């Protein structure tokens, strides 16, 4: 088995170089310090400096000004674009068997070097060559058939958060397959909600943070929920009610690029600041629904905070009434997920930020902007 990236201790732990300043050197500094003008440090440049930390940022930098990653990711080379990924539903290939809808999904696991931040290459393990993997979407009660082929260099599986038999669980001995092998997972789409799937090969942490996860959305069948018919219809992809909504999937994830069990980059849908650099267009007259999934490794929780607005939250999406009403921040532990619903109908158009409210995550890339427009 290869170990694709093994920085040595020397490489990763080079900090503290300055810690041991020359003792005797330091000593005389007393005298020298007095010779210096230490009247106070001011950020305002005495002469035109190239940039100042507090200047209003140029529009393309979003509200974070100088505090952001530099450059752009080559989405074409990566093979996926975070803006397109928001609404890229994979509904499989539907067919009818015995009067029942069967959806067949084809998923391959493959090793792929992806640019997870501008200029930073990461040796990812992917589903269908992208991180997060395809957003699988089905209707409650559909029969799902997922043909999974492992073209990667390690054993992999697809472990669905849903209801299925032990044989279909995607754990060692039940659908975990070696390189070059194939397995077909088959089960009913239930319960409706916002779920996820991920590789359950061991070590789990490594297989997760290398990129093996994706959203798994089951829309409610309105026929089964007559008392919440309108809500169920609005959730069901393909209905006119659903078309009114501006739906998107956001997978909160992170990358540990130096493999020290701490993340260097945080984002939704993999690319730090992607939606800050290219804000998500929102028509203010139409409501917004976000399928939010947290797959961040190493940090126990992640969060979502919406600026200048409040939302209703459906934890795990398995209810048609909100579990939290009128909040502007929710948190999710690892593998927790839910649905956010909100509207900008009464707002003035403009840029509205969203981000994790762990400042560290935000400042390491997990932030984005809604460009709310009149429409």
């Amino acid at each position: 088995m290869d170990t694709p990236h093994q920085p040595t201790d020397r490489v990763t732990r080079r900090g503290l170089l300055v810690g041991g300043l020359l003792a005797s050197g330091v000593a005389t500094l007393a005298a020298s310090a007095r010779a210096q003008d230490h009247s106070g440090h001011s950020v305002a440049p005495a002469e035109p400096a190239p940039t100042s930390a507090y200047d209003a940022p140029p529009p393309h930098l979003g509200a974070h000004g100088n505090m952001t990653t530099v450059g752009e990711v080559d989405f074409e080379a990566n093979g996926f674009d975070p803006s397109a990924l928001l609404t890229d539903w994979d509904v499989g290939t539907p067919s009818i068997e015995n009067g029942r809808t069967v959806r067949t999904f084809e998923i391959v696991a493959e090793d792929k070097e992806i640019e997870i931040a501008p200029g930073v290459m990461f040796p990812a393990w992917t589903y269908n060559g992208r991180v997060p993997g395809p957003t699988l979407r089905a209707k409650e009660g559909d029969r799902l058939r997922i043909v999974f082929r492992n073209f990667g260099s390690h054993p992999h599986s697809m472990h669905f958060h849903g209801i299925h038999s032990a044989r279909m669980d995607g754990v060692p001995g039940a659908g975990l397959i070696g390189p070059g092998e194939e397995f077909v997972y088959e089960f009913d789409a239930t319960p409706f909600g916002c779920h996820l799937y991920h590789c359950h090969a061991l070590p789990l942490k490594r297989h997760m943070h290398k990129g093996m996860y994706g959203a798994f959305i089951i829309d409610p069948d309105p026929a089964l929920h007559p008392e919440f018919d309108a809500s169920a219809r609005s959730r069901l992809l393909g209905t006119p009610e659903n078309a009114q909504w501006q739906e998107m999937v956001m997978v909160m994830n992170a990358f540990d690029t130096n493999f020290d069990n701490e993340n260097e980059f945080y984002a939704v849908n993999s690319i730090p600041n992607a939606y800050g650099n290219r804000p998500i267009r929102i028509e203010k007259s139409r409501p917004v629904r976000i399928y939010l999934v947290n797959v961040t490794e190493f940090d126990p929780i992640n969060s979502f905070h919406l600026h200048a607005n409040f939302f209703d939250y459906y934890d795990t999406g398995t209810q048609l009434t909100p579990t939290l009403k009128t909040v502007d921040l929710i948190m999710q532990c690892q593998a927790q997920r839910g649905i956010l619903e909100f509207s900008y109908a009464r707002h003035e158009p403009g840029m509205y930020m969203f981000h994790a409210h762990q400042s560290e995550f935000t400042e390491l890339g997990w932030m984005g902007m809604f460009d709310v427009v009149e429409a």
Partner: protein
Amino acid sequence: MSDTVVPAPRHSTWRLVAWIALPLLVLAAAIAWIVAADPLRGFNNGAPPVEAITFERTVLDDSGISVLIRAGGSEPMTIAQVQVDDAYWQFTTDPAGPLQRGATAWISVPYPWVLGEAHRVNLVTNTGATFEHEVAVAVPTPVATPGMLLPQAIVGLIVGVLPVAIGLMFYPALRNASRGVMDFVLALTIGLLAFLLVDMTFEALELAVESAALFQGQAMVILAALATFLILMGIGRRSGTPAGLALAFYIALGIGLHNFGEGLAIGAAFAAGSAGLGTFLGLGFAIHNVTEGIIVGLLPGYASIGIAAPIVKARPPLWSFVALTLVAGAPAVFGMWLGSLSYGPQWSALALGIGAGAIAQVIVEVTAYLLRQHRGTGKAWLSPPIVTGFLAGVAFMYVTAAVVKI
């Protein structure tokens, strides 16, 4: 006879050239083959390139934080992103583009740093490896303006020249000293120098560890010390063992090199923002350096007793007092200047290594001088004044150094 002898060397000269050329040609052929055939290819296991970065300089000013880095990777390296205190920041790389092995570049971040607090700069390369550098105490980096050179020179004079001048004041007292007193003083000098030698060597090796791997800092320090020692010994013994004024100048040179290295280190620490670590240290350092200065101050004393004639004590010329003071003290000023413009730790290490070599030479020569003085006296040269002098020298340096060590 000459007909047969003369061509023979010519013939053997060509043969010699051929014998030298042959292995060189084989070497060239071997290199060409290794490059062309790449027989080591089989060892390529797909591992990512080895990456190494050394932070050589940090500048904090109105436009933010800048660090001078030196790449030491097996392949050219690219800094893809920069974190300061766990946040990504816009930055510029100058010069732009990948960093060849051994190349340096400035990374500048418009970061609103906070006076007196700590910051961490973390560079993320294109492979995702990270290299962290801590700014222990953020203070504005002194700018190398003409206005700054003067205060630094004053500091250098305080550190380097003033103690020497104070030491000079012992000269009258020593002029007519007895053999026992002179033995004590010479042994004291050796003790002081021995402490400096040990201290400097470790200081140099510490700095060597901080410098980029490609400088092989530790080997560089040892070799520089050895080379300096041999060169100075060679020069000094060109015409017999040095004595008198010449010996005095060698001692001054050794201390001067030490002060230069120390000046570099002070300047570097200054630039790195450690200036605020405690004003009380200034006094301790002054005391410590006066001890050093005493050695130099005694030099005219050595000179006077050293100028051979047993009875006549030559009075050294006045200019020698000034010259000795400058040779021993002024390098501290230059060291301060260079150090605050702050070259990488490898240069401070090199300067300290050279200084260690120079001090070793002085120890050898002063010891030799002491031995010569005792030759033929029939007494054990390790007399009580000499032993106590040596121990007192080491102990005094140790105690005063304790004040300035952090």
